[in-house]
């Protein structure tokens, strides 16, 4: 346990010490639910379906919560609106899980940046104001960025260089850095930052978009090693992160790694290999025409490794028995086959 985590533990204990009996009673009654932002997304639904069986779940999302379980209290509003403050104030929130990060490459970068940064700063403000003792942020391993000279397994302490070649990632790095800053400044709040690698399953993200392409593009002369993580394992990681006493930054990835070409073969795809410069041009043009859900800078993932060291999450979150990379590939194949 690091000095910061000990400090955070101590801080959390002192926070639980109320000033008066009345307040203690009120906290005991009210501090019982987990607030999930972005709960109507595919990963959010999986999380909420697991959490609602064991505790009260409050959802905030701009999308309608028709698929949410009946006992989940859903608020169909924009977190940036003033009304959301009341939800944090009155709902009795013991922890906030922030999944409501916009990744959609079809949205303008200004809109994404505004949403991601403003929403998160609002959440931090509410957590500080209403002394919510736990925050779990779903960041991404993409914040490290794929680089030719990356260590084979990047640890949590590595500098976030993802924005150096991919300007679209800067808002995610800003959110991650803001959470880290909050982690240091507010030891009374247990802050957990999860940085999962490529998530596979029912989610709609870059890697699943890539897996759906009939002839996925590969960069000639490059074959980086890749890791995958199953969405259910990520839900388990969030669940473990919600336990009292857990704080810190954790990389999350399933066991095993494979060269990208093997993953494409196992997905039963016949790849199209292009020189990296041509590939960048093709993806750049297709991206501008909104023909693919990939960005030009994501070509780097087809060339350089960005694998994470998961020893800390295995040790502290107790993540064992996760889906290995073969199981993840089978899951991706299964999800793609089930789509209409």
């Amino acid at each position, binding site marked *: 346990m690091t000095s910061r985590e000990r400090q955070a533990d101590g801080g959390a204990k002192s926070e639980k010490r109320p000033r008066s009996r009345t307040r203690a009673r009120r906290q005991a009654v009210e501090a019982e639910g987990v607030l999930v932002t972005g709960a109507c997304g595919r990963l959010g639904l999986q999380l909420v379906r697991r959490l609602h069986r064991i505790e009260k779940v409050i959802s905030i999302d701009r999308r309608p919560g028709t698929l949410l379980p009946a006992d989940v209290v859903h608020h169909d509003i924009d977190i940036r609106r003033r009304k959301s403050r009341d939800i944090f104030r009155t709902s009795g929130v013991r922890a906030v899980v922030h999944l409501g990060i916009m990744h959609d490459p079809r949205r303008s970068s200004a809109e994404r940046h505004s949403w991601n940064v403003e929403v998160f700063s609002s959440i931090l403000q509410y957590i500080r104001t209403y002394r919510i003792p736990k925050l779990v942020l779903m960041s991404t391993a993409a914040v490290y960025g794929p680089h030719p000279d990356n260590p*084979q397994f990047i640890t949590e302490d590595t500098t976030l260089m993802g924005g150096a070649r991919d300007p679209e990632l800067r808002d995610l790095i800003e959110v991650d850095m803001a959470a880290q800053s909050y982690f240091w400044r507010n030891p009374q709040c247990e802050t957990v930052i999860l940085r999962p690698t490529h998530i596979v399953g029912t989610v709609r993200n870059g890697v699943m978009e890539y897996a759906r392409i009939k002839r996925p593009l590969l960069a000639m002369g490059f074959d980086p090693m890749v890791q995958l993580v199953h969405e259910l394992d990520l839900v388990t990681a969030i669940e473990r992160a919600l336990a009292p006493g857990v704080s810190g930054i954790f990389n999350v990835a399933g066991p095993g790694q*494979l060269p990208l070409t093997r993953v494409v073969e196992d997905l039963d795809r016949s790849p199209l290999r292009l020189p990296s410069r041509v590939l960048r041009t093709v993806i750049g043009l297709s991206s501008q025409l909104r023909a693919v859900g990939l960005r030009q800078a994501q070509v780097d993932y087809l060339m350089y490794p960005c694998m994470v060291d998961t020893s800390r999450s295995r040790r502290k979150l107790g993540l064992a028995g996760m889906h290995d990379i073969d199981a993840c590939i*089978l899951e991706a194949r299964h999800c793609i086959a089930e789509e209409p």
Partner: protein
Amino acid sequence: MPRLSRSSHDATVIDLPFPRATIDRLRRTLAPDFERRAQVIREHYDAQGGDPFGFDFDFAEYVLLVTGIAYRSYFRVEMKGLENVPSGAGLLVANHSGQLPIDGVMIGTGLILDAPEPRLVRSMYDKWASGLPWVSVFLSRVGQVVGRPENSDLLLDNGELLLVFPEGMKGIQKTFQKAYQLDEFGLGFMRLALAHGCPIVPVSVVGAEEQYPAVWDFKYLARKLGIPHAPVPLQALLPFIGPLPLPSKYRITIGEPMMFEGDPDDEDQIIGEKVWVVRHTIQRMLEKGLASRRHVFW
């Protein structure tokens, strides 16, 4: 539950335009128990769920057949002291020479083909090479790793055998006048060995200096290119002898493992004293090897 084809016993085999019988014959020529040696290495990495750095024996085997021919027939390598190779983590520290890192290739080939218990030798390559198409894939498939401290830590934690040339580029680019005179050693390998408590195994390579004898250091070009030396090998001045290295006979000696104790973060002077011991040992081994050889080419 469906299984991936890769998981079955019918592993994908690279198809080369040679009859299988020819390749099998070549395997047996290189080592009568080639299959057993290949199996030992495969099983080692299969037990770990594959190599995290991308080593692929199905690919490396074909490279081994080529380097094996050079090892047995071209350089006719004579390896001594193979029993000194540790079974667990260790650092092989060798002199570096010959303009191209053929010495490293020969050490690696010898440890697979001739060692009582075959071992894959891992070495580190410069970061710039990892951005080159084909080169980076080739290097990782044959078991080489990008030169990062995190990577060397991981390799030693996994019980791998690391080959280190502490002279670096300065050593390999020596001109022929300085043949077999060791250049300054870097200190990094000693800090690594102290941090992991693993043995240092000194290795001397005699014969590599003569493969591309550099007769002149083109200092002006070196300055312009921003590199320490720009050696001009004999083959460049006498093009009729061809671009291939001269078929000098390699004599590789693996010394007894050396254990050091101390703080890996000690000052350079303290680490330097330990490094001097290793350097001195290798220099003595080189001198002994040179004294015992009858001729450069046989």
